[in-house]
């Protein structure tokens, strides 16, 4: 799960990670009052989940409270387009207004799971402001990594090593060490999957603060963090994906024209692949899971068909535990209830496959049966009247 910058900073402050003074608001007048409170100069930052906000015009420096009002008026309600939002952009509902600080250095600090070693790793770089992937590609030696143990956290000697690597000294060095230890503690205790501070700011006075903050959380651990779960912003997610999540369906919207419904994540991904291999383009990823019932199958059909781009549907089920007759009944009922104007190709395999096929055949519906994945993909492409 993703959260907004202001929410990430709220969480981090709870662990003693220093951030600039600031508050979130949806009112330009309030933004002006905050700027006044921070001494006149303030930074107005659009709160959306995507990165690259500055380049898209979503982050502005106000030199006076009036400017803060002006900037906020422009930013609140705008469709902010960044390299991560897609061309349609994302509507800005709120801005974070923060005190403008005196910038001496912009560094980078980020924590994520290193899957190869099975531990979190704290990475730092002196090239703050740049995306870490870009630094990794251009100058991998500029990134210093320190893996740490979730059981006992980042140790002070590890924090010192990182602070020295950044060329920090004196009081600033000490502050950076405290910052890293607190950041690591926040990462572990909140079950984060990412905690990225870019830039990590060193002020002219030698203070160390999180100028920006991005945090993602392990969905599987949200049950023990009800406060973080509250931060979920459904407006930042695709409406069809939100709808699917209500029925425990794993749906991801894509931009093709062949809708698909599959059981199992691996099979669902490779069904997308085989659609493309046959010359089509998948409209979605949809895993109905290993134990889907008739109701879920029906909802899955409804959701994938609400995507207007879908011109044909491929249902691919390898029923290990799931019985094919149940799936077939679900599909038939869904088609009868919703009414479907596009071709539907169904490939069934596994337990009670003969019964399942018979149900589809005897339904009187124009469902196209397929044998195996290859046949299914070819038939669905053929039904579009194109492809190879």
């Amino acid at each position, binding site marked *: 799960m993703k959260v907004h910058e202001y929410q990430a900073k709220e969480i981090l402050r709870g662990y003693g990670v220093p951030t600039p003074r600031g508050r979130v608001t949806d009112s330009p007048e309030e933004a002006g009052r905050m700027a006044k409170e921070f001494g006149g100069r303030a930074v107005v930052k659009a709160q959306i989940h995507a990165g690259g906000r500055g380049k898209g015009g979503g982050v502005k420096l106000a030199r006076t409270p009036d400017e803060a009002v002006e900037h906020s008026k422009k930013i609140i309600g705008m469709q902010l387009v960044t390299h991560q939002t897609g061309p349609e952009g994302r509507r800005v509902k709120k801005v974070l207004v923060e005190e403008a600080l005196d910038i001496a250095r912009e560094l980078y600090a980020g924590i*994520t*799971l290193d*899957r*190869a070693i*099975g*531990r979190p790793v704290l990475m730092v770089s002196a090239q703050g402001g740049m995306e*870490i*992937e870009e630094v*990794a590609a251009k100058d991998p030696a500029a990134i210093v990594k320190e893996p740490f*143990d*979730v*059981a006992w956290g980042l140790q002070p000697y590890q924090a010192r090593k990182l602070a020295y690597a950044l060329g920090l000294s004196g009081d600033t060095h000490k502050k950076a060490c405290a910052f890293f230890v607190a950041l690591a503690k926040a990462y*572990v205790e909140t*079950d984060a*999957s990412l905690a990225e501070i870019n830039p990590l700011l060193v002020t002219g006075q030698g203070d160390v603060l999180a100028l920006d903050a991005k945090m993602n959380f*392990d*969905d*599987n*651990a949200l*049950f*023990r963090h009800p406060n973080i779960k509250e931060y979920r912003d459904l407006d930042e997610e695709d409406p069809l994906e939100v709808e699917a999540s209500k029925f425990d369906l*794993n749906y*991801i919207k*894509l931009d093709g024209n062949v809708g698909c419904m*599959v*059981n*199992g*994540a*691996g*099979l*669902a*991904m*490779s069904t*997308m*692949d*085989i*659609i*493309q*291999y046959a010359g089509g383009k*998948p409209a979605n*990823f949809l*895993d109905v899971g*290993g134990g889907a019932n008739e109701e879920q199958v029906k909802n899955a059909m409804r959701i994938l068909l609400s995507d207007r781009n879908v011109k044909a549907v491929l249902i691919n089920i*390898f*029923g*290990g*535990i799931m019985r094919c007759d149940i799936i077939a009944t679900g599909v038939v009922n869904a088609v009868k209830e919703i009414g479907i104007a596009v071709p539907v190709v169904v490939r069934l*395999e*596994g*337990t009670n496959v003969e019964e399942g096929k018979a149900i589809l055949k005897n339904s009187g519906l124009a469902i196209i049966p397929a044998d*195996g*994945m*290859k046949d299914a*993909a070819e038939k669905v492409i053929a039904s579009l009247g194109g492809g190879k």
Partner: protein
Amino acid sequence: MSAWVDTDTKLVVQGLTGREGTFHALAARAYGTQVVAGVTPGKGGSTVEGIPVFNSVAEAVKKTGANASMVFVPPSACADAIMEAADAGVALIVAITEGIPVNDMIRAKAFLARPECRAANGEKPRLIGPNCPGIIRPSAKVKIGIMPARIHKPGFVGVVSRSGTLTYEAVGQTTALGFGQSTCIGIGGDPINGTDFIDTLTLFRDDPETQAVIMIGEIGGSAEEEAAAWIRTSLKKPVVSFIAGRTAPPGRRMGHAGAIISGGKGTAAEKVKALKEAGVHVADSPALMGETLKKILPGR
């Protein structure tokens, strides 16, 4: 060891009294697995279809000699169940559960890695999974997991996969071609797992029943690249592979917790390239895993 499960495998099912636990324990028993015990704290003393239930794994092991475990415990308590099994001396722990927090798995894995953590047979306990279909060895009639037994057939292909249903796809294809399977192992779709590709490939290398391997990977992480490097130097048996997720968008988790391209890393293209360079025959389509294998096996 040339097999992880054999005719002397005695299974305890953690979470036996739950719906899934009962269903799959009985299916495993029907296939031929010796299911000797179940564990559900608080339900010790009862039975499920003749299978005795105990309050702890230690008690189950002591009373029944169980040496393997199948874990159906819900995600929030599953890492604890895995550690309990290891502490009780169980040699093979198969965790089916999906949705365990990453930090819990990191702790469980560290627990198992402690030098003093030893199974009753003196070896390190092996964890398969979590979030996996389990392990099946048709020649020994042992199945620990949720795979449909019916599609399997004793034979010579070792199958290893991060995905459950794609494993069934490979099994279905190799059964249809008359090849059959030696052992099939699902290593799971989570970012942290107990057994990886290399562990399994090592088993297949040393297993006389296995003459060829199908390895099914997917986007996310670098386990396939590491396996490719190992195959290049250490495996002479033919390997066919398929990588799921060529069309997956970056930054999105594709169903499995571990199936995500992050920071441009973990793409299908990188994995396919590494495998091809290691001499692995990569099928372009999941429908062609069996056929690709048939092409490279002389005289079959």
